């Protein structure tokens, strides 16, 4: 028996018993549709959240800030340590392998003016590394450069909110601003990251970044703080670095440099992000669990339906089986024919299920957009593959017994049945 003929025979048996096939296939269709739709849904939503996390740019980021020691002894010795310094960043960069990049930050609030517009803003003085460390996106102009730092250049990059407040729709790059009483030249404007609504549009982190004015660290020390004291460091660890090890090394190195006086604290943002990611992952896992339960139950139901229909089909076709055997069909050929028929029926159901699943996914996407959510749920190719594999497995597993039953029939008995 040709495989093609067996497939044809399977399709013919679907066609000749339309209602029965529809009832049989219902479970398989629902199961496969559930797999496709849920995989797309969970994958789409989760994918979007992971993207937001990446945009946030705080993975593997630590902040080291100045802090007055809590204990009296430490307080007593405070004068023995100079606090966070530019040199500390050089030492950390050299000694801690886990560090990908580090920038000292001098930060203070000033009134910023442009023409007749003015607002208060955080003046964030850092090295050019800071921009890539925190994964800022450039809107117009350029970032700060090493040359700017070397030359104490009075140049500034504006957060998008500051830019809008001071310049509205007009171009800011090339214009001059006043920070306090000092003139600065605008060389660039940041662009806000495009977070999804699920992520609260990026939240406060996003606002903070864009309510700042960024200037070279040297200009910051010279014109803004007036001292060499650093407010904090922003550190990014390497992607595959162990967070705890990196944290400890930074802590220990700084302690040594500060004569064992803990006049700094490390804010472990990376750890918080990691935990937030894990929470999302747990939700995704829960959804995946629900998804697999629905899929398993409906495929089981579908499989049992398929099994009963195949048994009926074998009984209806005893004569056919007898004839085939009488003209020389081996058991194996009969087995193969019925198994292929079973898989044909289940794959047919699977394909319909994929269609329904894709439809459901589009509907969910449409529904989310209708409710004002800025989400497109992509149809998951993996989900389609998974759904179809389930259908094939159901066809094989539940077709096995009827196929064996058919193949083992005695041709004389089978042929004498008047079915």
């Amino acid at each position: 028996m040709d495989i093609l003929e067996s497939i044809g025979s399977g399709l013919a048996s679907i066609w000749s018993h339309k209602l029965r096939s529809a009832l049989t296939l219902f479970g398989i269709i629902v199961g496969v549709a559930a797999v496709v739709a849920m995989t797309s849904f969970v994958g789409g939503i989760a994918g979007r959240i992971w993207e937001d996390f990446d945009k946030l740019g705080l993975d593997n980021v630590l902040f080291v800030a100045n802090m007055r020691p809590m204990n009296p002894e430490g307080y007593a010795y405070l004068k023995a340590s100079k606090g966070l310094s530019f040199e500390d960043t050089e030492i950390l960069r050299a000694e801690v392998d886990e560090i990908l990049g580090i920038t000292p930050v001098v930060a203070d609030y000033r009134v910023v003016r442009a023409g007749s517009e003015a607002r208060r803003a955080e003046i964030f003085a850092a090295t050019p590394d800071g921009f890539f460390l925190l994964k800022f996106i450039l809107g117009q102009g350029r970032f700060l450069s090493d040359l700017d730092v070397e030359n104490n250049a009075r140049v500034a990059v504006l957060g998008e909110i500051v830019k809008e407040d001071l310049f509205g729709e007009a171009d800011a790059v090339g214009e001059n601003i006043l920070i306090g009483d000092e003139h600065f030249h605008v060389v660039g404007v940041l662009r806000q990251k495009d977070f999804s609504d699920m992520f609260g549009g990026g939240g406060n982190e996003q606002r903070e970044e864009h309510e700042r004015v960024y200037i070279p660290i040297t200009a910051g020390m010279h014109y803004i703080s007036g001292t060499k004291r650093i407010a904090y460091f922003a550190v990014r660890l390497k992607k595959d670095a162990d967070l705890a090890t990196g944290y400890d090394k930074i802590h220990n190195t700084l302690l040594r440099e500060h004569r064992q006086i803990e006049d700094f604290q490390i804010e472990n943002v990376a750890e918080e992000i990691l935990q937030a990611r894990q929470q999302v992952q747990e939700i995704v896992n829960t959804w995946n669990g629900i998804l697999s339960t629905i899929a398993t139950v409906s495929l089981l139901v579908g499989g049992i339906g398929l099994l009963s229909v195949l048994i009926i089909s074998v009984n209806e076709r005893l004569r056919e089986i007898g004839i085939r055997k009488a003209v020389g069909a081996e058991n194996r050929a009969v087995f193969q024919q019925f198994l292929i028929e079973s898989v044909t029926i289940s794959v047919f159901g699977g394909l319909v299920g994929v269609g329904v699943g894709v439809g459901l996914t589009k509907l969910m996407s449409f529904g989310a957009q209708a409710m004002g959510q800025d989400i497109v749920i992509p149809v998951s190719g993996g989900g389609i593959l998974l759904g179809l594999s389930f259908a094939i497995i159901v066809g094989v597993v539940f077709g096995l017994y009827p196929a064996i039953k058919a193949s083992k029939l005695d041709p004389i008995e089978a042929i004498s049945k008047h079915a």
Partner: protein
Amino acid sequence: MLIRTENLTKSYDLGAVEVRALRGVTLGIEEGEYVAIMGPSGSGKSTLMHIIGCLDTPSTGRYVLNGAEVSELKGRALARVRNKEIGFVFQNFNLLPRVDLVANVSLPLVYHGGIARGARREQAVKALEAVGLTHRLKHRPNELSGGERQRASIARALVNEPSILLADEPTGNLDQKTGREIMAILDELSKEGKTVIVVTHDSNVAAHARRIVEIEDGVIAREGRA
């Protein structure tokens, strides 16, 4: 000798009773012979036909077909002998209802293996032409008369060019006129040199053969020239 059986017996174990359908049949049939196996129902003639047709195996005794010992064969090997050596014609035609005549007739070629689809169709069409069904190739069995169906089943029996044509009550479901037409085809095949064995309880049908073997109570009761 094409067919040689020695002391064939067949018993069925039906729980409490053991039914002895064949009780020692020794029979020889030469190539090209036209033989009728006769007997009332329950005589064991059907069992004998099933064993000769390799649909069943004897309980004891030997069966040599075309020089090969087939009484020892099982499952797969038996299926192969059926496919290559035997062409069955059944009382109730036994055609597949859902496919056309070409597909029905090419069925033995499908299980022969190694014959391409096109070649199978070609041979099936030729076999159908030989029994005068050229105009019915695309028809399904239920669109045909009884006589046409039986001619189609003869075409199927011959398509593999088997050593033996084994007809079980070939006219049983047909009216007299059509029955005579079918017997005429078998006569013609015999004349062409085919070995034809007809199993029947009808002496008019048996009369077409050149030799009649009568089975009663599981043994050969009489044997003679028609």
